[in-house]
């Protein structure tokens, strides 16, 4: 079994060369998704929407990782994506728990009405 790098270059080399524009396209999509997510975080006021937008940003980042992994011919980016998935799952679990707690206690999900961290 040849090393994985060699595997990529040997088996996918032709594919890569044929789709030279893939990385650029992927990065562009990633940036586009990220901006949408960021704008959603800043503009939307519903906590659940905000959390969804955060998920969108995380996935934009995942896409960028994949693109770079592909561009560099390394697997590191793809491994990092699994970490991001894990963190995102944990974050969603904790975040949704908070959302439920907020809904139960304040009956309100507008982020601007929560300023308990005020200095």
């Amino acid at each position, binding site marked *: 079994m040849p090393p994985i790098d060699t595997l990529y270059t040997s088996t996918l080399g032709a594919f890569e060369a044929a789709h030279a524009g893939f990385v650029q396209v992927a990065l562009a999509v990633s940036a586009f998704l990220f901006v949408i997510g960021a704008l959603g975080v*800043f503009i939307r006021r519903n906590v659940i929407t905000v959390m969804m937008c955060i998920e969108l940003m995380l996935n934009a980042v995942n896409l960028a990782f994949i693109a770079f992994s592909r561009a560099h011919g390394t697997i590191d980016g793809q491994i990092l994506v699994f970490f991001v998935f894990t963190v995102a799952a944990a974050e969603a679990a904790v975040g949704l728990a908070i959302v439920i707690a907020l809904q139960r206690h304040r009956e309100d999900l507008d982020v601007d009405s*929560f*300023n*308990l961290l005020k*200095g």
Partner: protein
Amino acid sequence: MFAPERIVMVAPWMVLFMPLFGFLVLAFFGGLAKKQGRQQGMMVIATSCVFVSFALALATVWGLMALPAGDHGLHFVQPSLPLDWIDVAGFTIPLALLIDPLSASLMLVITGIGFLIHLYSVGYMSHDEERVRYFSYLNLFTFFMLVLVTGGSLALMFVGWEGVGLCSYLLIGFWFKKQSASDAGKKAFIVNRVGDAGLIIGMALAASYLGTLDLMELSTGAVAGKAEAFGVFGPFTLIAIALFIGACGKSAQIPLHVWLPDAMEGPTPVSALIHAATMVTAGVYMVARLGALYTLSETAMWIVAVVGGVTAFVAATIAIVQNDIKKVLAYSTVSQLGYMFLACGVGAFGVAVFHLVTHAFFKALMFLGSGSVIHGLSGEQDMRQMGGLRTRMPWTFWTFTAGWLAIIGTPFFSGFFSKDEILIAAFDHNTFLFGLALLTAGLTAFYMSRLYFMTFMGEYRGTLEKAQADHGSHAAHAGHDGKADNQADNQADDHGGHGQGHSGIHESPAVMLIPLFVLAIGSVFSGFIHIPQFVEPAIRVEEALSHPAWMPFLATAVAFAGFWVAYLMYAGALREMPAKLATKYAGLKDLLDAKWGFDDAYDSFVRNGVNGVVDVSERVLWKKVDAGWIDGVVNGMGRLAVELSEGGKLLQNGLVRGSALSILAGAVALLSAILWAQR
């Protein structure tokens, strides 16, 4: 064990230690003794410490003279402790004394007269609540004065110099509840600071140019070789003048004499000990001690002589118009100190020390005599309220007579010999100074005779007797017995601290009269000991004086003239004269009453000067620099912090989206920076 070599090495330390021991005992156990009513014991301790010190000083002198003489027939030892006081960069000041005829004779004067004055004070201060404190100061003074005269270097001398200044301040202001006494204490201290600044400068110059502060080295020719490297206005002149400024302050010479008359606010024995016999002569001692250094500078010698001569004359003229018995004696002291400096200035250092010693006897005697008078008159100090005391206070009268005869220069009394030698020295040197000294001798005879006649002769002019007339002659003793009742309320209410306890004119107790007798004997006979011969080897300046045979006669004639005029004007046919003269020469009278305007001049110059500085300091330093700039910066820092945090508070609004925006902005900024750096 009692070999002279060993005695002279140990006894001087003991001489120093005894008064210090007394001070420590009184300082630590005085409060307890006062609580238990045992002040008498404390006074005995203080007095006997000084007596032991005197006995040890006698032993020191005996041991010193039994030693084989060194160069130029000088007997000297330098007892030192086996450690250095200061040892910096090759400049060493050992803890060493210098015992030679000069310091030994002054040791005898300080401990001897000091003992007598302690003894006198036992009687004089017997009614004062604070007498333990008084005696502790007196002991401390004796210690520092001994350090001053026995110190082996200028630096050690300076320790004593400052110490006696401190004690002088404490004792002048002893009755500090009286405003004038506390003011006088402060005045003495501040004026002395001016002089001491000169002394410090002189010491610093001596240390840097001559490389030594050792009195033995400074007073030998060892430093003379260095003189050639410098010109007329070289370091010798500077050192001598700077040190002389210190001497002027301590010894009350013009223009720093203004504190001494005010110092009479202190108890009278203090005036006798500190402001007549010992401390004020410290300047004379220093100049005489450094005689060899002074003679290297013509300019400095000239300044010393002129300041001394002028002071002698000016103070004598002021003494003429004083009515306070102690003020007359104070100005007389200033005048006599002027004589001593005049003698120093013309190179007759031994003669100056001679006059120092004889003056210590007769002036201490007269101060104590005046204290006895003041004591007897329940605190009266105005001579116009005295008179006729020769019959009421016969012992005081007779002993005072001895002092009076000595100071006016009656032949064969002590003052005659020393003053005669000063006149001869001045005559050899400068006719103008001689004239001034001779005139001063006449004035001295005049004002002292005036004091004498006004106090002891004629009829009693005061009111004390009339008030007591119906009590009969036993009132005095009754009052004596009742004195314990009113000890507390007579501390600060009158001049002598003797309030209602004494009534009627009475002779002082024996404990006060014995010192008077001893000092009277000294005043009469101390002139027969030829001190110049004794101390001159220590000074190393030998002045061959001509001895014009007519000088004693001239001096006596002048003194007699002064005496005779005073007799006529205050006891004889011309009693109207003083008043007439005062109206005829009102301008001169005003000048003398104003003490030649020194106090007023200081008042206007110094006070206006200080006020000007204060004004500038208030307007610029305080209101601009301090309140404006410094406070502005400090307060500005505080305000800046408040303002910044007001702004920063807006960031912490707790809104999630705001925080998210900040995070994004930060990330973008960081990223931009990295990209920009790697471009």
